[in-house]
């Protein structure tokens, strides 16, 4: 009886799995290629938004003031402690403090934070501000205030030259 039941349970699970897994991303969705972005036209203090895997990616050319502010924050003040340097390092381990590249999706519930376009509300910490539920990020994209639990996510990226970056 037990053996029959166990075998039956395995059978049900084996049949259920294709139905469940069917809802996962398909091969063509997974095969989304990386993108290359020319960052040369972005002036100091400017930021652009590019689309990668259906999501916005923020590329900000930070000012000296932005960088100083980000580096001056003590780790004890951060809900998700990360040094500024660790957030501006590409996959070749090269640190470029002037370029901050992040997925522009609030880690709370997925809205696109404001602050990337001129005139938008950058929030109390001079970085980004999510209008949906009030999360505020600093000039390193780290969460400082509000319901979001984590810093804005840094995608894998590599500077192929000083002006060309590959994301993904």
């Amino acid at each position, binding site marked *: 009886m037990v053996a029959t039941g166990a075998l039956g349970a395995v059978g049900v699970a084996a049949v259920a799995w294709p139905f469940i897994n069917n809802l996962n991303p398909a091969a063509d969705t997974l095969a989304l290629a990386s993108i290359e972005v020319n960052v040369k036209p972005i002036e100091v203090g400017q930021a652009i938004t590019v689309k990668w895997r259906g999501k916005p990616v923020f590329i900000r050319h930070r000012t000296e003031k932005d960088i100083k502010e980000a580096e001056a924050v003590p780790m004890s003040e951060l809900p998700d402690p990360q040094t500024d340097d660790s957030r501006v390092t590409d996959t070749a381990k090269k640190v470029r403090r002037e370029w901050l590249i992040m997925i522009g999706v609030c880690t709370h519930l997925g809205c*696109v934070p404001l602050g990337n376009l001129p005139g938008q509300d950058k929030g109390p910490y001079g970085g980004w501000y999510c209008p949906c539920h009030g999360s505020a990020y600093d000039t390193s994209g780290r969460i400082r205030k509000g319901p979001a639990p984590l810093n804005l996510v840094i995608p894998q990226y590599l500077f192929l030259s000083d002006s060309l970056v590959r994301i993904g």
Partner: protein
Amino acid sequence: MASSHGTPPVFNNKVIAWIDYRLPIFSYIEKEYHTFPTPRNFNYFWNFGAIATVMLVLMIATGVVLATNYTPHVLMAFDSVERIDRDVPQGWLIRDLHMNGASFFFIAVYVHIFRGMYYGSYKAPRELLWILGVVIFLLMMATAFMGYVLPWGQMSFWGATVITSLFSAIPVVGDSIVTWLWGGFSIGNPTLNRFYALHYLLPFIIVAVVALHVVALHVHGSNNPTGIDPKGPQDTVPFHPYYTMKDGFGVVVFLIVYSLVVFFGPDMLGDAANYIPADPLVTPTHIVPEWYFLPFYAILRAVPDKLGGVIAMFGAIAVLFVLPWLDTSRVRSSTYRPIYKWCMLLLVVDVVVLGFCGANPPAGFWIPLSQAATLYYFIHFLILLPVLGKIERPLPMPPSIADAVLKKKAG
């Protein structure tokens, strides 16, 4: 062909008798909707079950017609809805009926839920009846949410993003679950396709649960404004014609109000931002769900912690499942509960306040207000309900429904 409750009816029509002998649907209708003994003292709050049923049928009818012209693809969905509005014969009417029908379905169901809570309809022996109702409410919320995504406007897209991202709050597996829900790395075509399939499926599951809800209702019959069980024929009237007429009247009045909105303010309850096609790179400055979700949205935002907010929001609905056991009072109707009556009305005010909190940006005094209102919501269910049942002294109750009705008439 009429007969008293309990003895099988005799049908004079030979065809009906022939069918009924083999499949007793006419006996069933006779027993459950004609002679069914129903408390004689219903007030108009008791109309809303029938009204909700009418709205469910109307939503399915309009939905099936809309489906014949809708295209579930990210590049075509928005335009196909605009085409229904502008080019398809009477498409504007069917769409406005469906769109506003959702709102009026929720209005009916919220009044129905309030009725159940105020008059203690969830108490023994109607606990399962109540739980089935909460299941219907949850299924409605899922169906309405997925339906709102289909026009693929800005609010569709970003509402879907926010709500599906709720699941990313689950530790460890959260992100995998969200990817699984989306079928990709963001809300996209796979998401729209599956939401359409489920939006078409769930209403029929609702119909099935409504059928169970009605079966459970007809075991012990309806509660009534006094909360006292009928003690004999003097306390009841046959369901037909008394309550078929009263329900029919209520349905007509409700449909008049509904029609006023459909014909004179079809976009009154909606958000203008949903007439902008979905843009994955731009979040609207102010994301709001449809009005019927606002109180729960306010609870989500009131807690300054991601997982905490999600738990509070789902908890606000989960608490309804255990309502029959949280309430320790043996008196059903709030009419005879001098303190609880006011708590119940305060809960209504509280939920309305939460609604306004949810509609406004999370800044300034809205934050402490939504936190206070959220706190009161849970205090009502988790503290007031269990404690009041022990300490409150109920008012003297009439010996029977007939006594209550006749005394009221005389006085």
